[in-house]
């Protein structure tokens, strides 16, 4: 019988003459630790809290300044839009959905990976996800907020958007509950609300930890309020964990519901290229794809700048890259399957649409999309690239752009070539379109920077609970199964 902790490579005292090959094989069998360098629970807390406790570094102020400047583009763009009208965008009669809905689907997609990591990986007991789930959930909330901007202002008379809510109003009008666009309103607002709840519940014990340690009076008051008076008693933890489990289950359903509803905006119509049941898995997979890319874009600089490499380990980056590769293969399959279904349907409009994707006026966008989404992520088959954070960062930039192009193709190449050839045309974005979209990147990064400044960017309590020391039965007893071991 030998005692092995999962974090150490057994230097085998029983077999001195073990060959290097066997030693390497034994080393591979040992699971990589969730937190590197055998850090203690106290170290984890001190290190994550130091991000909030230390004065803001210079780069943070610069980044906030730049993001706030860029975010002002969206504010001004929307103000101009509401004052003037939707005509300031490049939409025309055939293409009455274009960049706005592209951006909406792009941002809502980024949100999905956050819930995927926090909820689905929690339910499947993937303990490594504890190191990145807070960062991913925050990404969800800010991405969904950016997404929510577009349908709100796209309605034209934005001050009447509240008519979408099922509440009694002066004209005795009730919304049409059978409309996919109303489903969309419910999906996005539910998604935002439940993401905030899930994130907030995860934050309660960490807010209590911050309350107990921070020196700044105002921040102490802030954490004391948001932690609701958490004491960390075992009875509280039991209810808390059950609540978290419930929320994880609910959020999993919600991810599927939301991407189904967002895809129903398209698939319930009869436009060629949209009218397909494949849209539901297509949107779900594409959303998670884009979200994992954005997560790598966020995590790689954060772990470097705040020296969190022991908590967000190379393994985490590796896992995100593997998910990216898997989702990339799924979308590649779906791109191919769309062509096959169009051919197999024998519908001339459907076939014409897919011919048009490859040879039509948007051929360049389609080719870029195929390159970015299907070809470049294949680099992740290489372990060296997956385990090199900045190489991974560079690779995921391409599918991030590629996913935006994908939504653009789905939306614009369909609406500019509908059933009536006389209404065919092209879509050209105006400067308002461009600036409003660039501005949402600023909104997203500004919100994220403020989040990492004031709240623990990594779930302290959850990372602590996956440490070997947190297991009351540690170290596990591992039977030595080598032949003859029992007689030694």
């Amino acid at each position, binding site marked *: 019988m030998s005692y092995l902790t999962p974090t150490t490579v057994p230097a085998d005292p029983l077999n001195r003459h073990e060959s290097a090959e066997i030693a390497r094989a034994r080393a591979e069998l040992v699971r990589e630790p969730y937190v590197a360098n055998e850090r203690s629970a106290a170290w984890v807390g001190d290190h994550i809290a130091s991000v909030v406790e230390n004065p803001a570094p210079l780069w943070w102020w610069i980044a906030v300044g730049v993001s706030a400047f860029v975010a002002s583009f969206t504010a001004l763009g929307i103000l101009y839009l509401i004052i003037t009208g939707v005509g300031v965008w490049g939409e025309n009669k055939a293409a009455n959905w274009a960049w706005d809905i592209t951006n909406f689907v792009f941002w809502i997609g980024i949100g999905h990976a956050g819930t995927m990591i926090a909820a689905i990986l929690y339910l499947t007991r993937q303990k490594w996800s504890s190191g990145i789930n807070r960062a991913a959930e925050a990404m969800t909330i800010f991405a969904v907020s950016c997404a929510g901007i577009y349908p709100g202002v796209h309605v034209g008379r934005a001050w009447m958007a509240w008519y979408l809510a099922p509440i009694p109003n002066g004209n005795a009008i009730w919304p049409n509950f059978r409309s996919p666009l*109303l489903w969309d309103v419910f999906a996005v607002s539910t998604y935002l609300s439940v993401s905030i709840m899930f994130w907030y*519940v995860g934050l309660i014990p960490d807010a209590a930890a911050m309350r107990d340690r921070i020196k700044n009076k105002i921040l102490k008051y802030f954490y004391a309020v948001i932690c609701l008076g958490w004491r960390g*008693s*075992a009875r509280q933890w039991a209810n808390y964990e059950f609540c978290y489990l419930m929320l994880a289950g609910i959020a999993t*359903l*919600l991810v599927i519901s939301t991407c189904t509803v967002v895809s129903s905006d398209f698939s319930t119509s009869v436009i060629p290229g949209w009218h397909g049941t494949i849209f539901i898995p297509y949107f779900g997979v594409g959303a998670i794809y884009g979200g994992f890319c954005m997560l790598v874009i966020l995590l790689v600089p954060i772990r470097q700048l705040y020296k969190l490499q022991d908590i967000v380990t190379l393994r985490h980056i590796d896992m995100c890259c593997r998910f990216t590769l898997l989702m990339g293969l799924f979308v590649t399959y779906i791109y191919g399957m769309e062509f096959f279904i169009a051919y197999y349907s024998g519908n001339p409009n459907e076939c014409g649409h897919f011919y048009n994707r490859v040879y039509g006026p948007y051929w360049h966008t389609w080719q870029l999309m195929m390159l970015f989404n299907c070809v470049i992520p294949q680099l992740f088959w290489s372990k060296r690239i997956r385990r090199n954070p900045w190489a991974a960062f560079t690779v995921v930039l391409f599918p991030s752009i590629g996913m935006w192009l994908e939504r653009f193709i789905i939306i614009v190449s369909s609406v500019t070539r509908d059933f009536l050839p006389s209404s065919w045309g092209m879509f050209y974005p105006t400067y308002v379109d461009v600036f409003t979209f660039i501005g949402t990147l600023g909104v997203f990064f500004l919100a994220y920077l403020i989040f990492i400044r004031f709240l623990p960017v990594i779930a302290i309590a959850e990372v602590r609970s996956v440490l070997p020391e947190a297991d009351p039965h540690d170290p596990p007893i591992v039977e030595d199964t080598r032949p003859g071991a029992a007689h030694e």
Partner: protein
Amino acid sequence: MSENAALICPANSGRMPKKLYAVGAEFTGPKQLYAAAEKVRDKGFQWWDCYTPYYIHGLDKAMGLRKSFVGLFTLGGGLGALIGIFLLITITSVYVYPMDTQGKPYFSLPGFVPILDLVTILISALMSIVGMTTLNFLPRLHHPLWEWDLFNRATHDKFFIVIEANDPRFTTEKAIIDLLTEIGGANVTLIGEEEDEI
């Protein structure tokens, strides 16, 4: 702090708070806490609790706790929301404001499903949190334990067992102090309750 100083009395100081809330002790790690919790459970105490910086798997069994009731709140919230939103949709789309869209029936259940689903999800998530905070007696503005300066580390790196004075098996302070010391507790402390000011 000065008027509250009498609330916290280390076990060997010879002082006693005017009105006792509980006796607490500190433990160094999850293993020690787990073993100690099993012993306190076996003595038959009811009004006691362990305080840990993170969730320790299996500690609820070591304490003899029942399964959490939060799931009932989730179920109740979900069912209530499902019935409520079904009635809202049906009444408004069939009776109050029937709208003819492409000849589809006013009552078209498949078309209602997404919103039924989403509202059920929203309310059951909300009720899970309401359930958790209600069962945990949160939010709470103050608690006698927060007077204990050591207790700041209950969210950082220390583990505590606190046995409350209103437990039926709480005989004398001496017996509880001895018990906590015997099962490996350090810094055993009497924690007083603030008296209501009239």
